[in-house]
C-alpha cells in the first residue's frame, strides 16, 4: 500500500517499524496536498517548512526511543484552530492576514503527541455553511465528483481525507459541520460530547454548540485521535472535568444485545429514498450481529433547525464582535471616523452569509424580541434535550442518516439559505442536546456518491459509538473506497 493510502493506525505501525520516516511520509503528503490544490482547493495554507521541521523532530524523538503512538503521523487542522506563528483565517477575508500569537489547546495536544501538522484546511467562512462555498478562499470540491460540494463547514478536512491527501484532520461541528461533510465525502467523523474537547483557541461560532472533533477514514483512527485531543482543559470553562478517555482501548466491542433506537422523524419527508435504503441496510447489519431495534420518538426534532437558527446566530453575532478592525482583523482603508471604520471594515471583511447571521443574531437578541426568539429557542432547546433523555432511557444508541441527500451540486443551494440550512436537519439536534454522534460511510448512491450513517449516543458515550462504528467497519469496506478524482 502506498503511504498516502494508509490510515493513522497503519502509519503509526509503519513508523514504529521504521518502514519509513516521518520526513518521508510528510514530504509525500505535502506533495500530494500541493498537487491537489487546483482540483480540490482543500487547503488554505500548506506549511511545508514547519511540517518538515516537525517531522524531523519526530524522527529524532523516535531515534531517542520515544514511542508515542502517533509520533510522526501527519494531520492538518481546520483553519478555525489557532496555530502560533501561522496564518489562521477561519475561511474569512476578515482574518486573511491574521497570524495567531498562540496555539489552540487541540493543536498543542497533537503537537505534544508528536503529530506533524501539514497545514490549514479550507472551511466555510467562520464555519457558517453546509457546502464550503462561503469560504473567502474559494469552494472546496468533492473528490467523488468535482462538480459537487464536499459539505461544510469542515469541507476541506473531509475532502482532503477522501482524496487521500491526509490520514487525519481536525474538524469542528456546530450543527453538523463534521458529520455532514464526512457523509458527503465518505469519511468518518466524530462530533464528541460537548465539553470533551477543549474549545480554547478554536475560533468561536456558537459557543454553546461548537465542538471540535476528529475526522479520519475510520472510526478506529478517530478513536486514536480522540485519545490525544480529548481531555479537560483549565483554559476552557465549559470543558468537562472528566473529558479524557481511552477511546482506542474501548474498541472491539460486541454488538450483541445492543438496543438501537430508530426515530421515525429521521426517515420522513425530505429524505432521499436511496439514502433511506442504504442507511436501513446498515442498521440491519447491526441487527444481524445481535442488536435489537426499538422505535423511539424525537418529536421536537422538527423544531431543531429553527431553534438552531435563532441560537447559533445569536451567539455568533456576539462572538464575531471582536472582529472590529481595531486590533488584528481586516481594517478598511476608506474609513474616516470610528463608526465608519467599524461599518466598513466589517462590511468588507465578512461575506454575505456571515453578515446575514450577524443580522439575524442581533435581531433575536434585541430589546423587544429577546423573549419571542432567543428565550423561546432556549425553551425549545430544553425540549429537544428532553427528547433525547427520554429516548436514551430506552435505547443505547440512536441511528439514522447523517444527511437527507448525498452531496449536492456546487451552486445548487447557495442562493437559497433555507434550503442550505435544511441540509443539516438530522445533525443539528445533536448539537442542541450536546450529545456525541458519529458519521461513517455505509454505501453509495447510484450516482456513486457516498452516504453516511449517523450513530448518536448518550452523554459521554463517545467510546460506545466509536466502537460501534469500528465494528461495522471491520465487516465492511465502504470506508476503504477511493474516489476517482485524479482521473476526472
Amino acid at each position: 500500500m502506498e503511504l498516502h493510502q494508509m490510515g493513522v493506525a497503519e502509519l503509526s505501525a509503519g513508523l514504529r517499524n521504521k518502514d519509513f520516516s516521518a520526513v518521508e511520509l510528510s514530504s509525500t503528503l505535502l506533495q500530494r496536498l500541493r498537487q491537489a490544490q487546483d482540483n480540490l482547493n482543500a487547503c488554505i495554507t500548506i506549511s511545508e517548512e514547519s511540517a518538515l521541521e516537525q517531522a524531523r523532530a519526530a524522527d529524532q524523538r523516535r531515534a531517542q526511543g520515544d514511542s508515542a503512538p502517533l509520533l510522526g503521523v501527519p494531520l492538518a487542522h481546520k483553519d478555525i484552530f489557532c496555530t502560533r506563528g501561522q496564518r489562521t483565517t477561519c475561511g474569512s477575508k476578515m482574518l486573511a492576514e491574521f497570524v495567531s500569537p498562540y496555539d489552540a489547546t487541540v493543536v498543542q495536544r497533537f503537537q505534544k503527541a508528536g503529530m506533524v501538522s501539514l497545514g490549514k484546511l479550507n472551511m466555510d467562512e467562520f464555519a457558517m455553511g453546509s457546502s464550503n462555498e462561503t469560504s473567502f478562499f474559494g469552494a472546496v470540491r468533492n473528490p467523488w465528483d468535482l462538480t459537487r460540494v464536499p459539505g461544510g463547514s469542515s469541507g476541506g478536512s473531509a475532502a482532503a481525507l477522501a482524496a487521500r491527501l491526509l490520514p487525519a484532520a481536525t474538524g469542528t461541528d456546530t450543527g453538523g459541520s463534521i458529520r455532514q461533510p464526512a457523509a458527503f465525502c465518505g469519511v468518518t467523523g466524530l462530533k464528541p460530547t460537548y465539553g470533551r474537547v477543549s474549545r480554547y483557541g478554536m475560533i468561536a461560532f456558537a459557543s454553546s454548540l461548537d465542538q471540535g472533533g476528529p475526522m479520519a477514514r475510520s472510526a478506529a483512527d478517530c478513536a486514536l485521535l480522540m485519545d490525544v485531543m480529548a481531555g479537560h482543559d483549565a483554559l476552557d470553562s465549559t470543558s468537562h472535568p472528566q473529558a479524557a478517555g481511552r477511546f482506542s482501548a474501548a474498541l472491539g466491542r460486541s454488538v450483541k444485545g445492543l438496543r438501537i433506537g430508530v426515530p421515525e422523524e429521521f426517515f420522513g419527508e425530505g429524505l432521499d429514498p436511496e439514502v433511506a435504503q442504504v442507511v436501513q441496510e446498515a442498521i440491519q447489519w447491526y441487527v444481524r450481529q445481535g442488536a435489537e431495534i426499538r422505535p423511539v420518538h424525537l418529536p421536537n426534532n422538527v423544531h431543531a433547525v429553527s431553534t438552531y437558527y435563532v441560537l447559533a446566530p445569536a451567539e455568533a453575532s456576539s462572538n464575531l464582535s471582536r472582529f472590529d478592525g481595531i486590533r488584528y482583523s481586516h481594517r478598511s482603508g476608506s474609513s474616516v471616523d470610528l463608526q465608519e471604520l467599524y461599518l466598513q471594515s466589517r462590511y468588507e471583511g465578512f461575506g454575505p452569509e456571515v453578515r446575514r447571521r450577524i443580522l439575524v443574531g442581533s435581531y433575536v437578541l434585541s430589546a423587544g424580541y429577546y423573549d419571542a426568539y432567543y428565550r423561546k429557542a432556549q425553551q425549545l432547546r430544553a425540549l429537544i434535550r428532553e427528547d433525547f433523555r427520554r429516548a436514551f432511557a430506552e435505547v443505547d444508541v440512536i441511528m439514522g442518516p447523517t444527511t437527507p441527500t448525498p452531496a449536492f451540486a456546487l451552486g445548487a443551494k447557495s442562493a437559497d439559505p433555507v434550503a442550505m440550512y435544511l441540509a443539516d436537519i438530522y445533525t443539528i439536534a445533536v448539537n442542541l442536546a450536546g450529545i456525541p454522534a458519529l458519521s461513517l460511510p455505509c454505501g453509495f448512491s447510484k450516482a456513486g456518491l457516498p452516504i453516511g450513517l449517523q450513530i448518536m449516543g448518550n452523554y459521554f458515550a463517545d467510546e460506545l459509538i466509536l466502537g460501534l462504528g469500528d465494528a461495522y467497519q471491520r465487516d465492511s469496506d465502504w470506508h476503504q473506497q477511493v474516489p476517482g478524482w485524479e482521473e476526472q
Partner: protein
Amino acid sequence: MSMAWEVVIGLEVHVQLNTRTKIFCACSTAFGAEPNAHTCPVCLAMPGALPVLNEAAVDKAIAFGLAIGAELNHRSVFARKNYFYPDLPKGYQISQYEIPIVGRGHLDVLLPDGMEKRINITRAHLEEDAGKSLHEAYAGESGIDLNRAGTPLLEIVSEPDMRSAVEAVAYLKKLHALVRYLDISDGNMQEGSFRCDANVSLRRPGEPFGTRAEIKNLNSFRFLEKAIGYEILRQQDILEAGGKVVQETRLFDANQGETRSMRSKEEANDYRYFPDPDLLPLQLEEERIERVRAALPELPDARKARFIEQYGLPTYDAAVLTAAQELADYYEIVATDQDAKLAANWVMGELLGALNKAGLEIESCPVVAEELRQLLTRIADQTISGKIAKEIFEILFAEGGSVDAIIDARGLRQITDSSAIVAMIDEIIQKNPQQAADYRAGKEKLFGFFVGQVMKASQGKANPDQVNALLRERLQAQ
C-alpha cells in the same frame, strides 16, 4: 420663588477589586505599567480565547455581600453586554445581568447632623473593566491600552434612597470605607479604582419619582457633591419654567463644575444582553460563604459598637472614629492606656482639624499615632500642660519628630516646682498692688487676671493647678 423640591438620588458605584490577576485571565492587575504590558490572548480578545473566572474576585464579592447583610444568590449568571468601543476588545463586556451574585442589602450611614440613615442596596454584580483609549501622544491617532481590560469590578447599585448631596456623599464615603475595611479594593479614586455614577431626579415631596439624569465620571466625593448640586439647580430651572427633564446620560466636567449631555435615552445602546455561553452559571456553596464569613475583618458597625462599649465613647465619636479603618486603627493606638475620651477629642479635634486644613487623609498623616499617644502621656504625667501640648502637636504636625525631644529642645517642661511658682506669683502681686488690693476687697473676678499673668510669665509652662492653689494662698496672705 420656588416651592420645595425633593431631590432623589441613587448611586451606581464601580469598585475595582484588588485581586492579583484579572477576572478572566492570569494577567496582572497592577496599575501604571507600559501600555499593553499586562495582556494575553484572553484580555486582547484574540480569536478563540476563552474566559476562566478568577475565584478570588468571587470571594471578594461574597465578602461585600455579607458585609451589607445581603442575600447572596447561590446561582448567578454571567451575561454579555454587547456594544462596540475600541477599548472593549471583545465587542462585549462580561457582566451579570438577570441574576447578580449579591442581592438586596443595606448600609447604615451617619449624617453630619449625627443622625443615621439606612440606604438600601439593590444589588452588586461582578463584571470586567474595559481598557483605555489614549488620545495624547499619538498625533492624530488614538492608542489603545488594554492593561485595565479584564480588571475585576464589583458594580454596587443603590436604591434611590438619598435625598441630598450630603446624604449621597455620606453613603459613598461609608461604601469607600467598607471596601477598604474588607480589603476588597484599594479604593484609589485617582487611579479609578472607585468610581461613581449618580442618578438624580427631582419631585414634589410625596409625588412619584421624576425623570432622572444619570451623571457619569464622578471620581471624587467633592465632584459628586458639586455635580448633584449643579444638577439640582439645572433640573429645578427646567421644571419651574414648565419644562420636562429629559432622561439622558450626562457627563460631569470637573473644570467647569457642570454636567453636560452625553447621550439621550433614544441614543442609548441596545446592549443585547444574553447569558455568556463561555461561562457556566456561578454556583455558591454554603461552605464557601461560611469560609468567607469566618475570614471577615471587624466591620465598621461592629467596631463602632465596640468603641462605645470598650472606650465608653459617645455614639457620634465612635461613628466618626470608625468611618475609616486607618482612622480607627490610629485612634486605638492613641487610646491605649490613655483617657479614651481625651484621646477621642484629640484625634477628632486637633488631628482631623489639622488634616482637613492641610487637605490630607489619615493615611498620609505626618504625626504617627505613637507620638500623639506620647503627647497624651506627657499631659497625664504633668510634664506638660494641655495648652503646651497643642503647641507641641503643631510642631509635630509641621515638622515631625518626637514629643519628648521637642519638650526638651524647646524647654517646654511644665514648671511644678512650688517655690519657683511662688516667686513668680509674688513678683506679679508686687507689680500690681492696686489689683491685689481690689481682689482682697472682694473683686473675685480679678483672680483670672492674676492667673493669666502668671501663665504668661511662665510662658505657659507653670502647672495650672498649682498656679491656682498657690495664687489664692499668696493673695490671701498679704
